[in-house]
């Protein structure tokens, strides 16, 4: 280790240097405090033995100047002095001295002082090293976190892009609310026309929330995509019995997602098909909260369905269908449990009966304004924009029965669906890509 010896008297300088060198230190000498400061600024010396009394700048002043400047390291400063009164010690300590050694210098005392100085300097250096490492690691973690956050934002945008954009389809008006609890939701929903007389709609809520649930919801959504090869069109094409087609779709999903090990995530869903001519809806309720049917004729709200097993929970699960007669002006609400289990600031759940009441109150609100009404309703109830669980809700309004010969309307909407498909790269992703962990 190097020591800087600062002393204006060559003899003292020599004596101190020789003792230090005999102890294994390398010495650098300065004849004045000013020169000493220059050397400290240019070198990496961390230990100084400095005389108190010197012409020009004295020892304590040198220490003050040293402490005021930043050399990126701690410099241990020992004052060499003939003074031994308390007030002198205090002045030296106040200036920033770390230790004192009395004049004339006794080799044994200097050895002890230098050993303790070395210990402090080495400790300081190891702390500096550790800090530097921590800072580096922190920076790496921060960069990793930033990258993950930005990936998640991107994934959330992609998830949002999967949601239906069109809100008018061949006599049906729609609107919806989607509030993920974290970046990504385990909820997903869609609706689209199939053939010239049917509309498929569904809402899925995968167990849990966040990334693992979102991946499963993407995979299910991908299976149900509106392409001719998708599960919906395939089964609806294969039979004219809609109940049978709906059950086959749920059974096929269940076969794909239920694993004997039980290590998979199950999901609840509402899957329905609406006949656009008759207004008849056939739906299956797989462990999902009951859809609410607002009837304009009765001005009443009915919870539809008798429950049912979730999809992907048991390989042997059986599903059931329910039918609803929709009349012009009627609305059907499908929603995730995050909506009815949304807690108020006081911890009270929103609850299904409150939702039924609200649905009746919203009857007079034009459907195109419903999205902002729903948004405000749940934000106000929740008290914050941070939701505990994903909250999603879709409203379908049966406006007018489709008339025979209304092919123009259908084909334009159909093309809209095809366009949306083309814009969604995820829908074309193989389901296998979601399963590789």
């Amino acid at each position: 280790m190097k020591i800087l010896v600062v002393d204006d008297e060559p003899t003292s300088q020599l004596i101190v240097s020789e003792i230090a060198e005999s102890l294994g230190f390398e010495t650098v000498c300065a004849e004045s405090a000013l020169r000493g400061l220059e050397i400290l600024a240019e070198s990496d010396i961390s230990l100084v033995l400095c005389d108190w009394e010197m012409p020009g700048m004295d020892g304590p002043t040198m220490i003050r100047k040293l402490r005021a400047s930043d050399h990126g390291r701690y410099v241990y400063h020992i004052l060499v002095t003939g003074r031994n009164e308390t007030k002198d010690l205090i002045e030296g300590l106040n200036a920033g001295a770390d230790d004192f050694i009395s004049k004339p210098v006794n080799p044994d005392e200097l050895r002890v002082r230098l050993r303790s100085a070395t210990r402090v300097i080495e400790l300081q250096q190891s702390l500096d090293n550790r800090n530097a490492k921590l800072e580096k690691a922190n920076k790496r973690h921060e960069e990793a976190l930033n990258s993950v956050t930005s990936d998640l934002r991107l994934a959330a945008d992609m998830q949002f892009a999967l949601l239906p954009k069109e809100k008018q389809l061949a006599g049906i008006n729609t609107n919806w609310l989607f509030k993920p609890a974290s970046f990504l939701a385990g909820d997903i929903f869609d609706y689209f026309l199939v053939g010239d007389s049917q509309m498929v709609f569904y809402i899925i809520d995968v167990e849990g929330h966040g990334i693992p649930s979102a991946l499963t919801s993407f995979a299910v959504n991908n299976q149900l995509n509106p392409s001719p090869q998708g599960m919906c069109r395939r089964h609806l094409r294969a039979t004219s019995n809609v109940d049978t087609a709906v059950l086959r779709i749920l059974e096929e999903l269940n076969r794909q997602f239920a694993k004997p090990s039980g290590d998979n995530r199950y999901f609840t869903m509402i899957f329905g098909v609406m006949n656009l001519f008759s207004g008849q809806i056939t739906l299956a309720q797989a462990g999902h909260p009951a859809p609410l049917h607002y009837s304009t004729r009765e001005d009443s709200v009915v919870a539809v369905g008798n429950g049912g097993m979730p999809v992907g929970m048991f390989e042997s699960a059986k599903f059931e269908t329910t039918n609803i007669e929709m009349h012009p002006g009627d609305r059907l609400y499908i929603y995730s449990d995050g909506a009815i289990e949304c807690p108020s600031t006081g911890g009270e759940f929103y609850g299904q009966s409150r939702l039924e009441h609200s649905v009746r109150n919203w009857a007079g609100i034009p459907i195109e304004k419903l999205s902002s009404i729903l948004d405000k309703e749940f934000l106000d109830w929740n008290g914050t924009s941070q939701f505990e669980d994903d909250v999603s809700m879709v409203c379908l309004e049966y406006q007018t029965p489709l008339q025979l010969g209304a092919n123009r309307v259908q084909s334009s909407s159909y093309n809209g669906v095809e366009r949306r498909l083309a814009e969604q790269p995820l829908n074309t992703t193989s389901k296998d890509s979601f399963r590789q962990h």
Partner: protein
Amino acid sequence: MNFSTEDNSNHTIISITVERLDAAVAPELKKLVQTLVAEGNNRILLDFEQVLFMDSSGLGAVVSGLKSVGDEGEFVVCGLSGVVLDLFKLTHMDRVFEIRSDRNDGLQALAA
């Protein structure tokens, strides 16, 4: 501990000692049942007496417990009320699980 277990000669009682059986505690329950079954305790009574809320992850863990005990074992649940019982009914789990009103009733089901 979110669960307490009571081992008896031919069955084990698991009491859920938290009010919310949700994603935060579900993995612990899943693991607990797996461990019990691995140790040879496959006759289990799961007591919901203290549970006020169960979410989808909680239900997933309970179903996982039922699957863990297998055909050889028994898995009975008791003490369900309010929204917890509602969720069992909504998901038709009342058709899958042996549901008993309280612990005594549950123990009788295990003894039968």
